[in-house]
């Protein structure tokens, strides 16, 4: 009987994570490009379900939701920009994993704020490094810009990538804190029934 109920809670978790992935995908269509940033940098609320999944279950659950969301996006947009999708995947993970690790360790609203701040910083640093060594050079190859200078790379990163990720972190956090506070009693109740 014990094994049976464990299996069904696994299936339930699996389905919940799938639906969170769907919500992420639906929220992607609510995105709004910010007026002063280039159009390929778009802020969306797709990270919110990822973050919620990571806080309800585990950091790994967040990674799974992020994976589902990006795979769905890839399938729907016809892989026009696989590099951008990969970037979004990594950004989501570097944002969500630190937050949920801090939250699960200390609990409480304060640790959520600490987590959101450190998650934003870690994501920004990680995306800066990733853009410098991987993403921008790959775009360079696609666009026929094999000889990108490091000054060009650095200026792109400091003008475009870093402010964008900071802003994205701040916007998602600004949305997530009131949402989480509202949902908290409900989340605790669900955690008790599913685990």
């Amino acid at each position, binding site marked *: 009987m014990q094994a049976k109920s464990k299996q069904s809670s696994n299936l*339930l978790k*699996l389905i919940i994570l799938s*639906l969170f992935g769907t919500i992420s995908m639906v929220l992607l269509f609510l995105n709004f490009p910010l007026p002063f940033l280039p159009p390929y940098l778009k802020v969306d609320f797709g990270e919110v379900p990822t973050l919620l999944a990571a806080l309800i279950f585990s950091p790994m659950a967040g990674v799974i939701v992020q994976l*589902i969301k990006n795979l769905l996006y890839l399938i729907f947009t016809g*892989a*026009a920009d696989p590099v951008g999708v990969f970037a979004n995947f990594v950004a989501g993970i570097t944002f969500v994993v630190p937050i949920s690790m801090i939250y699960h360790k200390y609990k409480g609203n304060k640790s959520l704020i600490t987590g959101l701040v450190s998650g934003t910083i870690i994501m920004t640093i990680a995306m800066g490094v990733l853009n410098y060594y991987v993403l921008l050079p790959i775009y360079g190859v696609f666009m026929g810009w094999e000889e990108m200078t490091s000054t060009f790379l650095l200026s792109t990163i400091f003008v475009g990538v870093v402010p964008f990720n900071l802003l994205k972190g701040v916007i998602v956090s600004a949305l997530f804190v009131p949402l989480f506070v509202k949902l908290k009693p409900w989340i605790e109740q*669900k955690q008790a029934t599913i685990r």
Partner: protein
Amino acid sequence: MSNSIIIGQYVPGDSWIHRLDPRIKIVIIFCFVVFVFFANTALSYGWLTLFAIATAASTKIKARFIAKGLTPVWFLIIFTFVLHLIVTREGTVLFEVFTFPIYSGALIQGFSISLRFFLLILVTSLLTLTTTPIEITDAIESLLHPLKKIKFPVHELALMMSISLRFIPTLMQETEKISKAQASRGVDFKTGPLKDRIQAVVPLLVPLFVSAFKRAEDLAMAMEARGYRGGEGRSKLRELVIRKQDIIALGLFAFVIVVLFLLRS
């Protein structure tokens, strides 16, 4: 909302490209993306363009739909072209635009790289134009099958993808319903400063998450009641089978690649 956004690009049809095995399509497109970078002469570019356009034409999808899928990248293609015109300084000066010299090398390089970009986008978009998302998911499950050996949960991933795909229209509708319900209570999503618009999303998300949980519980119960017990020994409604036309398509593509290598220098 549901009227203005049509999710996915799939255009129903009955061309032989539509009927190809989705796995074959994915493999061919993946190879094409790699081999495009091998083209380096006018003839080899011409050959690949011929292949891409012939394939696009044989899908029997109206050019209008194909062009619609390309709209987000037109800007990038033109941008690449102009950037190369400005920066590259090889070959002879052909003519001057407002005393700015345009080099022949720049024209050639700009054109070939924009063309490469165009070919990449055109061919990859043909996959989503002719294949339903659920077919692509099945194909991914099948292609990732070898990863099962290293304990990668291929079946679970495919199941999650199918469930997510199935619920996209449902949850889109639900989002629309909730946002209308909240708007009728006075929530303003469209105007006001950024901060207010972000705050306005909260009353939209709370019911969305709660109802997603409810749906998940119902679905889990329904699946268990029908005897779902994981991937082992589960039979499939849609079986992927490699047929003669798939072998022919692979052969044709191999021919295209061989000719490409003969044409490059």
